[in-house]
């Protein structure tokens, strides 16, 4: 009997219809992210290869300053006591507890990242910029996601 694996998403419920307009801000935020991913070359296979050889500061600079900016803005939001439209305080949902999943899953992810040089964000950005290869990577990623769902209970978490 496998341990029940905690999950981040709510079980099936009768969800109320959401107006398409509510998605627009997310679409725009995504477009902005995709634009930056291409213009800053973080979606380039070459940049990822260079990063894993420690031969450029570029990727480390991007990730490092992104984390610092994120951390500072979270601190600021908490400090200002900003709340969501529902009234609950803004907070980054914590990760589920797990003993092995983060390291083991992380290693598997890293193996793929080092091969095709694109994490999920850049895969979508490359797809938009018309790279045939991104289509195959996305197909593989969907397959991997599905197979994880298939064997989830047999893996240590």
């Amino acid at each position, binding site marked *: 009997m496998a341990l029940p694996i905690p*999950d981040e998403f*709510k*079980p099936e419920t009768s969800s109320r219809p959401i107006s398409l307009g509510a998605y627009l801000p*997310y*679409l725009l935020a*995504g*477009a902005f*992210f*995709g634009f*930056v991913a*291409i*213009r*800053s070359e973080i979606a*380039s*296979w070459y940049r990822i290869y*260079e990063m894993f050889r420690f*031969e450029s500061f570029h*990727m480390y600079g*991007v990730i490092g*300053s*992104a*984390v*610092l*900016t994120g951390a500072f*803005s*979270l601190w*600021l*939001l908490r400090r200002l006591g900003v709340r*969501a439209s529902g009234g609950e305080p803004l907070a*980054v949902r*914590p*990760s589920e507890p797990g003993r092995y999943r*983060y*390291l083991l*899953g*992380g290693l*598997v*992810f*890293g193996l*793929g*990242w080092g091969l*095709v040089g694109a*994490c*999920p964000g850049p895969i*979508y950005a490359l*797809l*938009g*910029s018309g790279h*045939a*290869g*991104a289509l195959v990577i996305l*197909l*593989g*990623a*969907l397959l991997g*996601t*599905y197979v*994880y*769902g298939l064997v989830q209970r047999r893996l240590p*978490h």
Partner: protein
Amino acid sequence: MEWLIQTWPWYVAGPVIGLMVPLLLLLGNRRFGISSSLRHICAAMGSRLPFFRYDWRAEGWNLAFVLGIALGGFMAGVWLGLPEVNLNPKTQAALEGLGLPPDSGFLPQELFSWSAVLRPEGFLFLLIGGFLIGFGARWAAGCTSGHAITGLSALQWPSLVATVGFFLGGLVSARWLLPWLLAWLR
């Protein structure tokens, strides 16, 4: 407009990406993370596995977000034209050692063009890489955006462990797995 065409420096790109974390919180108290979209797509395609039986419609914002990423990729890559990547000469030498030309634009065409993808070996190479990304991201419950950026920003311990895993896996892959697979490709 010159700045738009040139490579955006890390000190511009990084903070802009970091701002996605508070932006998505302000828009709807959402956690910035991209690989969940892969799970939502499987769920939306009607998989009956327990892992995919959840209210994916409630996570529709995530699908809108990744659709936007593709749109942004189109604007930045097709309208403006892809930037030429300037690599460290050491990296260029290493690429030549792998049998990849360091000057084929934004991505090595030998791996990503239609003619590469339509060869069975080329197809399999990208499929395997994608598979590891999808499988690993769900096992670790997140990818670079959800863990290395959002989770680290929020000082969450599991995200640090996952990020260490991403980098260790990537190092092993770039040093050993990639040269081995590329030799097999040829």
